[in-house]
């Protein structure tokens, strides 16, 4: 039965659709697996066995009556615990929200449940999606199974760990400065930050309004495209949501990369900063592999990484402080130390600083579009380092900001992180692929071609069975 844990969404859906796998059996199997494994890896804030079994039974009854809602019918999924599920606390991994029961489900949760998915639980995050890894909160931080005791990245850390340990086949994360792509990179899975406005954020606790994105996290590229398909669409009640067409993200996924032009942004990780040598070599090897598949990969330059970082951090700190100001003023001791310190920085900025950062943002967006003109996508780094030990606070603090994800929260472009090999010590390495606005399908096409040729798919963390 172990193999059930590692099936793709597509494989699982095929078995359910053919009546060879019962949603109830699958859910029970994963609940038992979570009960056995999660005390070690801490991916879950809250497991929802009754809710999950009821949803699985409903999905099965509908199937037995001849109805099917498609790929997600009977599929177990998890939600980062800043995403609302009606009637269940959304804790944000914080003492402040320990009893904060959601009155209604988030739009993305509704989409999942309407499609027949089975929400199995709420997943660990960094406190309020910013402070972690922390050991002074009501719940422990999620631990990366790669390496046995390593940082899983964040803030969608439980989502990454649940996938990497085979406890779930798909999960949702959120990304404000890289929080889907960081755990994807550290945990050896696939995470997409879609174009700003592609996926509704209504019912998701905000970190920074103008930088927040909800994104799909899966073990492979095609599953990721399927999940984004489900999540996408205009929400007139989300002021950041865009009324744009949603294409079929899997239609051209296997068209290959021959003739595509890919801009290779090396200076982010070999110039502006210097990535770990094994990470640097992995990205260069990915560029070579894409060339061998027929892509025209050429080095291009964007603005210096530091400019995007400053812009992201001033906007994020200002917006986050606006959200947390009252609680930081009245009950600062209820935050964990890391979130308390990271959330208060916005108090240093005045209105003109925030506006200047937004003006800088417009400048960076224009410069990035100009540099990408004539190219179908960008290849660059996601993380600059492999995952450090989670109990080494200095190492985590050192590697956490060493990344090239923030630029694409600033620009709002779609960006995907995916596995690109392993260090000699067996820790995941990664690449990041970035597209033009609304061109997620192009990213999936390139990512799928790379995934199929590279041969990293299917690796599992040692000791997790």
């Amino acid at each position: 039965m172990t193999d059930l844990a590692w099936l793709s969404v597509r494989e699982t859906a095929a078995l359910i659709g053919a009546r060879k796998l019962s949603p109830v059996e699958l859910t029970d199997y994963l609940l038992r697996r979570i009960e056995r494994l999660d005390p070690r890896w801490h991916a879950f804030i809250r497991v929802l066995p009754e809710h999950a079994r009821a949803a699985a039974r409903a999905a099965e009854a509908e199937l037995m009556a001849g109805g099917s809602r498609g790929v997600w019918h009977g599929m177990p999924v998890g939600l980062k615990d800043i995403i609302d599920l009606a009637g269940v606390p959304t804790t944000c991994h914080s003492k402040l929200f320990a009893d904060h029961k959601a009155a209604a489900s988030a739009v993305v949760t509704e989409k999942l449940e309407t499609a027949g998915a089975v929400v199995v639980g709420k997943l660990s995050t960094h406190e309020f999606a910013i402070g972690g890894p922390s050991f002074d909160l009501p719940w422990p931080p999620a631990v990366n199974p790669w390496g046995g005791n390593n940082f899983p990245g964040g803030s969608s850390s439980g989502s990454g760990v649940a996938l990497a340990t085979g406890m779930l086949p798909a999960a949702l994360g959120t990304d404000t400065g890289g929080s889907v792509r960081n755990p994807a990179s550290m945990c050896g899975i696939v995470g997409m930050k879609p174009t700003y406005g592609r996926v509704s954020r209504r019912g998701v606790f905000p970190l920074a309004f103008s930088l927040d994105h909800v994104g799909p996290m899966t073990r492979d590229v095609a599953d990721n495209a399927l999940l984004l398909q489900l999540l996408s669409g205009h929400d007139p009640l989300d002021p950041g949501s865009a009324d744009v067409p949603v294409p079929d993200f899997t239609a051209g996924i296997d068209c290959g990369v021959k003739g595509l032009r890919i801009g290779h942004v090396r200076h982010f990780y070999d110039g502006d900063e210097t990535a770990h040598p094994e990470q640097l070599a992995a990205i260069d090897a990915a560029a070579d592999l894409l060339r061998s598949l027929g892509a025209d990969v050429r080095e291009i330059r964007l603005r210096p990484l530091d400019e995007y970082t400053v812009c992201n951090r001033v906007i994020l700190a200002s917006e986050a402080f606006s959200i947390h100001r009252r609680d930081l003023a009245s009950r600062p001791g209820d935050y964990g130390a890391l979130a308390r310190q990271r959330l208060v920085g916005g108090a240093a900025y005045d209105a003109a600083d925030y506006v200047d950062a937004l003006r800088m943002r417009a400048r960076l967006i224009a410069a990035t579009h100009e540099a990408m003109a004539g190219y179908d996508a960008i290849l660059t780094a996601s993380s600059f380092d492999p995952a450090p030990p989670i109990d080494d606070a200095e190492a985590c603090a050192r590697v956490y900001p060493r990344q090239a994800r923030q630029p694409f929260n600033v620009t709002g472009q779609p960006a995907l992180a995916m596995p690109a090999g392993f260090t000699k010590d067996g820790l995941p390495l990664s690449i990041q692929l970035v597209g033009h606005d609304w061109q997620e399908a192009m990213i999936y096409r390139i990512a799928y071609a790379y995934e199929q040729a590279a041969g990293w798919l299917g690796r599992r963390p040692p000791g997790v069975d």
Partner: protein
Amino acid sequence: MQDDETLRLARRAGLERYLADHPEQLRAALASASALRDRLPRDLSPAEEPAHVYRARANKEQPR
């Protein structure tokens, strides 16, 4: 960051309790944030507007 500047910012933001309970954290956070502010561009022309992320509603929802 000087103590008087920390105190000024804390008062402006209503963070007196934070300052009393976690003074070193507040000083460190404000100093780090201030360093970022100093790296914002100072050559922005008056024509350079802020990035607008909020999107206009569809025409059908606008008043006639």
